[in-house]
């Protein structure tokens, strides 16, 4: 576990140091003096860690809303925004870049959604019951998880350690008033010094939610359950193996912003890993893992009234992969080396049922069985000096994609008669990050270069309907590799009771991949405006800046605040889509004698920089206020924790720039969570 502590040095300390679900990169003041080194490490290494479950430690009182969805946890992060197509399966964005520009892994495993319309970001296939934390690296600081432009997110699974804890378990239940959501979860764990097994399960069922002003949002219901088991066995004092199995299934998921719903989204995620404390005497924390996951996703429009044509759209995604990583300490240098690889099969089809039932079914492959192979090598060297540190990191990867299905290949050749069935690239990433401490100031600066291959849809999608801009999208197999030069800079002024951080980053993305209208092409989906072909823009530029602060008013009261501004334009200085307007959030938290309470405000200015060509309309300014109260009870040796809260207290009817087709967000919502832990 040394590696984790190195790369994410707060992992073992979160109980004491985190005072909120969100860790803003800085310790609470009273502990500050003890942890200078770890703190500076943290600042250099990672942007952010979002604590998720910690369920086994019953750490809930520190979370504003325990048992909320993983999506809500991620949204609470400083650097992540979630694109919403409904109440379920939100799509994370970082630095205003979405899935295809991010590397998102689950416990280091590459997983790819099976939906051509991005209705199943991989974050929808795990739940808070499985997870310990989300490790977030902005830009090339996320390259440890894979090739990326915007950043990387790793959802770390929650696992017991080898310790003689014996049995323990907990039961959790939650209810939310707005959408009548019930959540029932539990876990049961057993651990000895040689063996452990963790099991957990969670079930959620929600009805339609109501936006502010009691406006029902039709087709926003969902139901899902998730079950996971993981187990470890010590082979020797310094060796262990562990295995993980997660099964996740969602049914009857409504997507109010889209013309279709989902009848089934199913994932099986499995892995076996081997850990050894040292390797060849000089390496430490050697961890190797092989994994396999398979996803099935079935879109469904049978519940929708007035569909012009009924269609079935199932998709499958299968990924097998491995990684092996180790640390190496050499005087001031702390190396981390990782070799990883994966093989993915993405296949999706569409069958349309003609109104005239005498005509044959209309069938096409929307993802033509694309096989992606990727082998990468990541290395970083963290060099610590007296009052400063330097991190150098690189990722070199061989990436190839090919079309395995002849039907699909012939389909794409309609557009690209000369296309090759496979495409090979060599992807590079390089980053230099410097951290300097000057009295009470922490200064961080970085310059990085990164590349990414086009996604399956961008390269090989066939008439993928995007309801946001109302266009059909066609992939372009000969897209150039997208690359980014990125700089970031931040200054933190830190005093024992308060701190303030100003940070900014800038991405110059060459060969920026986006859909452009091709007027010569005829639409496929009935009612669409046109057809877009994925293409490389010369370049695009994205700029993000944030000012955040925190203040410990007293031991019990803490205040946090954040305001951020973003801008994204293409080479013609036209606005890029889905770029955040000015946004802010602020929270006052109270925690004393097992009582907790919070009052929070979040809002955004009007979206003045929007682009109608991408289906955007101007999103109005909004602000919402939420509040929560919690109490922890000790019942003999066990814990009972109760938390209640009210979100969007004034029942504001609003939507944000990330809301697909501007569907309104949830109105006033009252929730109650009860957790009981048996130690």
């Amino acid at each position: 576990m040394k590696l984790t502590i190195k790369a994410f040095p707060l992992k073992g300390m979160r109980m004491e140091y985190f005072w909120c679900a969100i860790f803003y990169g800085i310790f609470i003041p009273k502990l500050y003096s003890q942890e200078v080194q770890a703190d500076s490490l943290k600042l250099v290494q990672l942007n952010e860690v979002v604590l998720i479950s910690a369920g086994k430690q019953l750490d809930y009182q520190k979370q504003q809303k325990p048992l909320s969805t993983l999506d809500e946890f991620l949204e609470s992060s400083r650097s992540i925004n979630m694109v919403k197509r409904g109440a379920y399966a939100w799509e994370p964005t970082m630095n205003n870049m979405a899935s295809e520009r991010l590397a998102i892994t689950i416990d280091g495993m590459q997983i790819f959604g099976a939906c051509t319309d991005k209705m199943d970001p991989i974050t929808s296939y795990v739940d808070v019951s499985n997870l310990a934390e989300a490790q977030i690296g902005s830009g090339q600081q996320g390259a440890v998880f894979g090739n990326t432009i915007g950043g990387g997110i790793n959802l770390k699974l929650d696992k017991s350690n080898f310790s003689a804890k014996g049995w323990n378990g907990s039961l959790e239940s939650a209810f939310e008033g707005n959408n009548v959501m019930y959540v029932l979860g539990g876990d049961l764990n057993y651990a000895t010094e040689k063996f452990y097994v963790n099991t957990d399960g969670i079930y959620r069922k929600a009805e339609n939610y109501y936006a502010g002003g009691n406006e029902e949002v039709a087709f926003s219901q969902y139901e899902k359950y998730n079950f996971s088991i993981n187990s470890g066995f010590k082979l020797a004092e310094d060796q262990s193996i562990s295995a993980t199995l997660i099964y996740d299934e969602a049914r009857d998921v409504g997507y109010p912003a889209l013309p279709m719903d989902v009848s089934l989204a199913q994932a099986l995620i499995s892995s076996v890993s081997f850990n050894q404390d040292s390797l060849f005497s000089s390496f430490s924390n050697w961890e190797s893992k092989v994994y396999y996951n398979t996803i099935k996703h079935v879109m469904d429009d049978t519940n929708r009234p007035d569909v012009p044509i009924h269609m079935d759209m199932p998709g499958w995604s299968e990924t097998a992969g491995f990684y092996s990583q180790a640390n190496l300490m050499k005087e001031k240098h702390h190396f981390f080396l990782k070799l990883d690889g994966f093989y993915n099969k993405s296949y999706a089809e569409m069958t349309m049922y003609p109104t005239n039932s005498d005509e044959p079914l209309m069938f096409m492959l929307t993802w033509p069985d694309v096989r992606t192979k990727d082998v990468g090598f990541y290395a970083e060297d963290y060099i610590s000096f007296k009052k400063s540190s330097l991190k150098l990191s690189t990722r070199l990867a061989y990436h190839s994609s090919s079309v395995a299905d002849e039907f699909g290949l012939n389909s794409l050749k309609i557009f690209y008669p000369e296309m090759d069935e496979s495409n090979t690239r060599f992807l590079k990433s390089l980053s230099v990050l410097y951290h300097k401490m000057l009295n009470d100031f922490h200064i961080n600066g970085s310059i990085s270069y990164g590349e990414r291959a086009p996604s399956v849809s961008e390269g090989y999608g066939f008439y993928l309907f995007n309801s946001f801009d109302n266009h059909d999208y066609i992939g372009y197999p000969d897209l150039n590799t997208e690359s980014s030069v990125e700089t970031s800079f931040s200054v933190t002024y830190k005093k024992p009771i308060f701190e303030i951080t100003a940070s900014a980053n800038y991405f110059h993305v060459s060969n920026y991949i986006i859909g452009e209208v091709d007027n010569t092409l005829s639409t496929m989906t009935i009612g669409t405006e046109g057809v877009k072909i994925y293409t490389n823009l010369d370049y695009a530029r994205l700029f993000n800046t944030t000012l955040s602060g925190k203040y410990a008013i007293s031991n019990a009261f803490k205040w946090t605040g954040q305001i951020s501004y973003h801008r994204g334009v293409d080479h013609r200085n036209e606005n890029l889509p889905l770029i955040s307007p000015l946004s802010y959030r602020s929270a006052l938290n109270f925690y004393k004698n097992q009582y907790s309470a919070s009052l929070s405000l979040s809002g955004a200015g009007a979206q003045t920089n929007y682009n109608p060509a991408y289906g955007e309309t101007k999103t109005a300014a909004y602000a919402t206020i939420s509040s929560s109260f919690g109490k922890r009870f000790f019942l003999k040796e066990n814990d009972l924790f109760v938390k209640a809260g009210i979100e969007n207290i004034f029942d504001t009817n609003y939507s944000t720039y990330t809301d697909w087709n501007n569907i309104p967000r949830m109105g006033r919502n009252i929730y109650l969570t009860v957790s009981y832990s048996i130690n």
Partner: protein
Amino acid sequence: MKTIKYLSLLFIAVFTLASCSKDDYDDTIVETDPMEAYNLLKEFVYTDHTVELYSEKTLITTGYNSFFVRIKDISTNTFVENVNLSWMPMMHMETMMHSAPKSVLTATETPSIYNGFIVFQMPGNTTEYWDITFNYTFKGAQISKTEQIEVQSPADVLSKVSSFMGSDDTRYILAYVAPTTPEVAINDFTAVLYKMEDMMTFTNVENYKVTVDPRMPGMGNHSSPNNEDLTYNAKNGMYEGKLSLTMTGYWKVNLKLLNAANEVLKGEDVTEDNLESSLYFELEF
């Protein structure tokens, strides 16, 4: 030594077997009926010979039909070469007769087998029928035989042939030839175009052009890119182009016939107001 002996034996055995099977293979070639893959539609039996009529299809339908014809000498049970075969299709209507566009019959790689096509403009019915007159030489005699055939509308009732009056007051017949099994791909698209000189004479039209615009009426008249107009190929006398089909289903291939001076003789552009051309083929797959 023993090993070597066994190895040599094995070697000889394998070699011999291989030689045997090679001979067998040659025999089968000779015995294989080159018409095996085709359907025998009709066998006309006469005193000393038969005329066999084969097709890729199991029926004779309106539109383009490719036929294979061969003549068998009953006495020797062999197929005869150099028979100087020609044919003449004829429609017997209640009040009149007319023929149909056809190719000449030419000998194939197997010289006893003749290949050619006929474009039937209409199906037969209870009172009106098609026949074909075959003219050939057999054992030095010039023979002419007329046999009735049954021409049906295709089972899918899709339009694969169009007989129409052009704006130049000439009657044309345009018939779909290929793809016989359309695919979601850019298909090689072939058609034949004939001009009706009189009831009995149809001549192959050269160097005109047929524009191609495939549409799916069931999908809001969805179309496809990279189609190519049908242009004349002097080598086979057919019109060849490309037909892109982006999905399975029902397609209406809208066409427009242009003469060598690029004047439209038949058909209209498909627009938002005009959903189809008056000249078209239909496809289902």
